[in-house]
């Protein structure tokens, strides 16, 4: 089966939904959204806690409620959606792209499209990525998988829980599993500061007296059929465990919340170049990758902490993609954005003179009484003082108009 369309959005989560709706608003005709799961909404569907939409909708929504708002908007349009459908290959051709889709209902589909918007989101880092020594029993899983079991299937993976990593999903699950009667014995974090948002530390751990062990790690996992216990040890300045201070906790499950990775296997097949720091595609200020007509937004681009910014970023991406479809608009002049002191990454890595710009960034480590700067050549164009600034919180710098004759933009923390 062949489909001829103007825009293909890969992923029906918050990024894909917002991008598709925005494409329509910007006058694009034939839009197809493909989603590998059986329903639209992406990871939001299993995030039944609230806190979504404060910026976007000025109200506190649950994940499914936030998704529903976009699904409703989409249903009011003629945007085509295909669930149970996976994009497996993107071939870049002279007059567009051919994307191969595997669809549960329709089999193999060859989609010929003018643009592709990558919105595949991210996945969780797992045990292999961090190489915890020990056995390989049941009961060890990522916090997101545990969340899926509890919230979507109605099954608890365990009753005595240890959580490694203090990412937001881990924190949310500490509270969620406590509510379902589990005993969460510890949240263990390698870094000297938490990985997740401060509000989640307070609302998910402190309110339930769940201990958070900073600068600690798990040094052993025991149990053959099912996990029975873990060893936890503080670490020294070389990140090596201090053996003498090791203690053991019994448990029947270990959840991992050790970070998220943009899911870019498909992008790589297509030839998209990735940024080594974010793990997402390198983009210009139009969110276009190195392949003309292939755009990226949301967590596939870089991991966000708030879905509100995912939606916003995706709309901006769609707007640029629509311009590309209509006028083959591509960014002509590129001014590099360089990261300086204490900034881990800034995105995009280039801006366009004479146009507004939005830089998203994260700092390397927490800092107090620090000021975030953006400088065009020698002129400071942005300055914001922070009492506290955390790597877990994405920072955004809006630039009204990038100066025409700028040579370089520099962002740094002091």
């Amino acid at each position: 089966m062949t489909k001829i369309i103007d825009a293909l959005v890969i992923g029906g989560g918050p990024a894909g939904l917002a991008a598709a709706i925005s494409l329509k608003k910007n006058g694009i005709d034939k839009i197809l959204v493909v989603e590998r799961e059986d329903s639209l909404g992406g990871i939001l569907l299993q995030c039944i806690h609230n806190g979504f939409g404060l910026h976007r909708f000025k109200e506190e929504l649950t994940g499914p409620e936030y998704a529903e708002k976009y699904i409703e908007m989409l249903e009011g349009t003629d945007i085509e959606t295909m669930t149970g459908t996976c994009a497996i290959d993107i071939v870049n051709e002279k007059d567009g792209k051919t994307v191969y889709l595997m669809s549960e209902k329709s089999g193999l589909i060859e989609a010929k499209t003018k643009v592709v918007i990558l919105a595949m989101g991210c996945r969780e880092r797992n045990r292999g990525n961090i190489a915890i020594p020990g056995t390989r029993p049941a009961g060890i899983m990522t916090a997101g998988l545990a969340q899926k079991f509890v919230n979507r299937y109605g099954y608890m993976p365990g009753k005595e829980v240890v959580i490694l990593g203090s990412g937001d999903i881990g924190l949310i699950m500490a509270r969620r599993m406590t509510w379902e009667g589990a005993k969460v014995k510890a949240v263990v974090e390698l870094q000297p500061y938490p990985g997740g948002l401060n509000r989640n530390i307070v609302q998910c751990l402190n309110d339930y007296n769940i201990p958070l062990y900073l600068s600690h790690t798990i040094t052993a996992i025991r149990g053959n059929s099912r996990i029975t216990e873990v060893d936890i040890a503080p670490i020294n300045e070389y990140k090596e465990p201090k053996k003498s201070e090791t203690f053991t906790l019994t448990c029947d499950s270990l959840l991992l919340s050790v970070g998220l990775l943009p899911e870019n296997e498909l992008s790589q097949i297509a030839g998209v170049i990735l940024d080594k720091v974010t793990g997402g595609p390198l983009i210009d200020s139009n969110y276009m990758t190195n392949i003309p007509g292939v755009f990226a937004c949301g967590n596939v681009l870089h991991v966000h902490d708030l879905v509100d910014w995912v939606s916003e970023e995706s709309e901006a991406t769609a707007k640029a993609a629509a311009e590309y479809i209509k006028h083959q608009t591509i960014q002509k002049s590129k001014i590099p954005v360089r990261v300086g002191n204490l900034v881990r990454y800034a995105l995009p890595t280039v801006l366009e003179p004479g146009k507004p710009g939005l830089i998203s960034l994260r700092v390397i480590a927490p800092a107090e009484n620090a000021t975030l700067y953006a400088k065009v050549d020698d002129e400071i164009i942005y300055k914001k003082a922070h009492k506290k600034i955390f790597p877990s919180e994405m920072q955004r710098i809006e630039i009204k108009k990038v100066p025409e004759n700028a040579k370089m933009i520099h962002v740094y923390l002091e």
Partner: protein
Amino acid sequence: MKNDYQVIIIGCGVVGAAIARELSRFDVKVAILEKEADVSFGTSKANSGIIHAGFHSTKGTLMAKFVVPGNRKFDRLCEELEFPFERRGELMVAFDENELRILQTYHKMGLDNHVPYMELLGKERVLEMEPNVNPEVEGALYAPTAGIICPYEYCFALTSNARENGVELFLNKKVSWIGKQGNGKFEIETEDGSRFTSDFIVNAAGLYSDEIAKFVGITNFKIVPRKGEEYLLDRRVGTLIKRVIFPCPTSNSKGMLVIPTVDGPVMVGPTAMDTEDKNDWATTRDGLKEVFTQAQKMVPGIRTSDIITSFVGLRPAAVGNNGDFIIGTTTVSGFINAAGIQSPGLTASPAIAEHIREVLNKEGVKMELKRDFKPKRKIAIRVRHLLEKRDYSEYGNIVKNDKAYSKLVCRCENVTEAEIVAAIKEGHITLDGIKFATRAGTGRCQAGFCTSRVMEILHRETGIPFEQITKKGKGSEIAPYPIKKGDGK
């Protein structure tokens, strides 16, 4: 009579499975008893997957007797059973004068064992063949007949073909007692209360072969597990080397190797540590360090950040027999050992199987070839192989016939629902079993995405309640507690 067989094989690792498949060619009534929830779940699944050329084994041992003939049988086995097998060759690399002398010793051992086509290579040739080997290499012993396979796919292929040819497989049957009846038949009881009878027992129980032997009063050997940690690396590293790279061996092990796998990723390991504990399946910090220090010495481009997963294998090394294989008849009539099969047991397995068949024949089991023997295994469609080619016409045709081949379940390894269902129908009903049979969950995300989807399919196809679905058998349930409505807040 129910559960009565001519031959019962205890243990369905590669040795038991190879024997079963060999016997399935003949008109013999055979059953296999496996204590785990799936075949190969003991030592075999953690094997390095190397089909050795055979220069490591000392002349005069059973290892040396079976390794080269075993190696030779793999071409035909692979053709019949279509498991992945590639003759990549192996290189034992030397970094100084002393090690160069060790190469000579092994070259000589190889010649004694009739290993064909071996060559001693100089530095330039080694680096020409494997440009990513440490440039400080001084020379290597090269054996082109060495190969790589996937050990559990080999075991699955053997078992599946044996079953197609009439062998019966019983899973979750841990032997708890063996006795002899008045008519000379063995009576075997398993932990779940099942009873089996047979004229012959082949003891292929791996780590537990000493305990099985003890049931019939044989106590002249003991299995002391030799633990090996292995680390599986990202596909990126797969491009670094083509052949199996060995260091010069130490007294108790072949040393830490860099091993290409048939599925792409490279493996490094294994360590070699004697342990008293047959349940010591834990990787360690020290093991990781040891493996990477050695592996990086040989191939400096390897990084710990490439680790996808790690695991432990326990080699069933026999004490009281110089560590050699224990194969053949025993003081108990009808009880035949295929025990203490550690490295190079995988390589030797087809030759051991043939030998056991001859032993049984000598002991009185009539071996008449089956007229309707089916040497070819029914081959499952592997969507990932079709997609790798990026040619979609063949795949499109398959999907036209069966839409289940277009429902992707594991997105990292491109495994479809149809493949999962096929594996379940083959008898793989644990998540690990399905993983080994289909590769679902072996990729970069390590089953973060597909676990719940595979569980849904398992539940639908087998009726096993969701909360009773296990990783690798009873006690390893994935999500054991249904949340009752009204519980919690």
